[in-house]
C-alpha cells in the first residue's frame, strides 16, 4: 500500500486523496502516468512506482470484465430488436394522409408509406440513396397534386448532377403515378452528400 508514515505536510485537496511519503499526491501521480507525462522523479521514486504498480495491477485484473465493443456471450440482437419493434409499432408516426386519385375518390395513403415507395424509386438510379422524403399536398391551385422534397446521397463519381437529379425525378414520378396513383406536381431534389460508391454503375437498385 502507499499509505505513508509521515503526517501530511498540507491537507490534500480531496479527502480521498493521499499524500505519498515522497511528498506527491496520489491523484497527481496517477494522472501524470495516465497522461504519459511522468518526470524523472516518478520514474525513480519507489513510492510513485508502487502507486503506479497498483493502478497497473487494477487494469490487469479488470480485463475480464471488459468485452471491448462486443456483445456479451449468448446475446441475441434479433430478440431484443423484436421486443423494441413491438413497442415501436404501437407508436408509429405515419405522417399525414395524402389523397390518391381524384380528390373525391375517398382514397388516402399515409405520408411515411408513400415516402418509402418514393425513396425506393430514387434508389433505382445507380449509386443513389434517398434520405429525407417529405410529401406536401396543397389543393389551393385546384390541381390536387402533391409536391415532393427529396434528399439524396449521390455517387462521388457522378459527372453531371443535374442529369442525375433528372433521372431521380423521373423514377420518383413514375413510381408515384404507377405504383401509388399519387399525382405529383413537383419533385424538389437536394443532394445532401456525395459518397464513394464502388461499382456504382451496377448498384443502387433496391435489393
Amino acid at each position, binding site marked *: *500500500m502507499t499509505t505513508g508514515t509521515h503526517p501530511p505536510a498540507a491537507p490534500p485537496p*480531496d479527502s*480521498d*486523496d*493521499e499524500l505519498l511519503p515522497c511528498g506527491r499526491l*496520489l*491523484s497527481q501521480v*496517477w*494522472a501524470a502516468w495516465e497522461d504519459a507525462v511522468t518526470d524523472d522523479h516518478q520514474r525513480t521514486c519507489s513510492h510513485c512506482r508502487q502507486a503506479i504498480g*497498483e*493502478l497497473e*495491477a*487494477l*487494469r490487469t*485484473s*479488470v480485463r*475480464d*470484465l*471488459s*468485452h*471491448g*465493443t*462486443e*456483445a*456479451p*456471450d*449468448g*446475446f*441475441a*440482437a*434479433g*430478440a*431484443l*430488436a423484436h421486443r*423494441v*419493434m413491438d*413497442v*415501436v*409499432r404501437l*407508436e*408509429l*408516426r*405515419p*405522417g399525414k394522409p395524402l389523397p390518391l386519385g381524384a380528390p373525391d375518390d375517398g382514397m388516402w395513403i399515409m*405520408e*411515411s408509406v408513400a*415516402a*418509402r415507395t418514393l*425513396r*425506393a424509386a430514387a434508389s433505382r438510379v445507380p449509386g443513389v*440513396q434517398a*434520405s*429525407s*422524403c*417529405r410529401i406536401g399536398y396543397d389543393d389551393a391551385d385546384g390541381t390536387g397534386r402533391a409536391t415532393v422534397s427529396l*434528399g439524396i*446521397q449521390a455517387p462521388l463519381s457522378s459527372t453531371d448532377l443535374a442529369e442525375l437529379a433528372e433521372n431521380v425525378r423521373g423514377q420518383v414520378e413514375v413510381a408515384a403515378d404507377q405504383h401509388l396513383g399519387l399525382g405529383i406536381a413537383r419533385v424538389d431534389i437536394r443532394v445532401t*452528400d456525395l459518397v464513394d460508391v464502388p461499382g456504382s454503375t451496377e448498384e443502387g437498385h*433496391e*435489393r
Partner: protein
Amino acid sequence: MAGDRTSTAPPDTQAGLDDALLTVRAAEGDEEAFAVLVRRHAGALVGLATRLLGNQVEAEDAVQDAFISAWRRLPEFRGQSSFGTWIYRIVTNRCLNVLRARKPQAALDTAPEPAAPEHTVAPDRITEARAAVGDMRQALDGLSAEQRACWVLRELDGQSYESIADTVGISQQAVRARVFRARRHLTNAMGAWR
C-alpha cells in the same frame, strides 16, 4: 455485428445503408429503417450496459428502454452528433438511473459469473478467474452510481474524459475526480483480498 448472428429476421433491404441515412428515414417515421439501427447497435450497447450494470438482464432492459426513448425523440433529433453517439449517451444515462435506484449492496450475492470457455481453460484457472471477477464485481458495487459509470466508461470503454463529461453531463474535472475515487476504492479492495 456479433449480435446479428442469431437473428432470424429476413434480409432487410436497408441493411447496407449508413446510419445517417437510416436516422433521417427513421425520424420521418420509417420504422423499418429504425429496426436496422436497432439490430446494428444493440450488441455493442448491451455490452456497454452490461459493463455499467454488471448484469446482462438489466442491461438488455436498459437498452430496450433506451431504443424506445430514442424512437420517441427522433423527430427532434437534429443530427448534432451521430446516431451511435446519441444512443450511447441515452443508454449510459438510462444505466446511471438504474444504478442510482439500486439499494446499496443489493447486487452482492446476485452478480452473475462470466461464461468461461471451459473446454479450453484448466479448472483451477476457471475457479481463480471467476473468483477474481466476482471480487471485482463486489468492489464495483461499493462505488456510487456516478463513480462507477465514469470509471467503466474510462477504464473499460476507453472513452476520453471530455467524451465522458459530455455523456454524463458533468465537468471534466468532476469526471476525473470520480474516476480517481473509483480507482482508490478498487485498488484498496484489491489490496484487501490479495
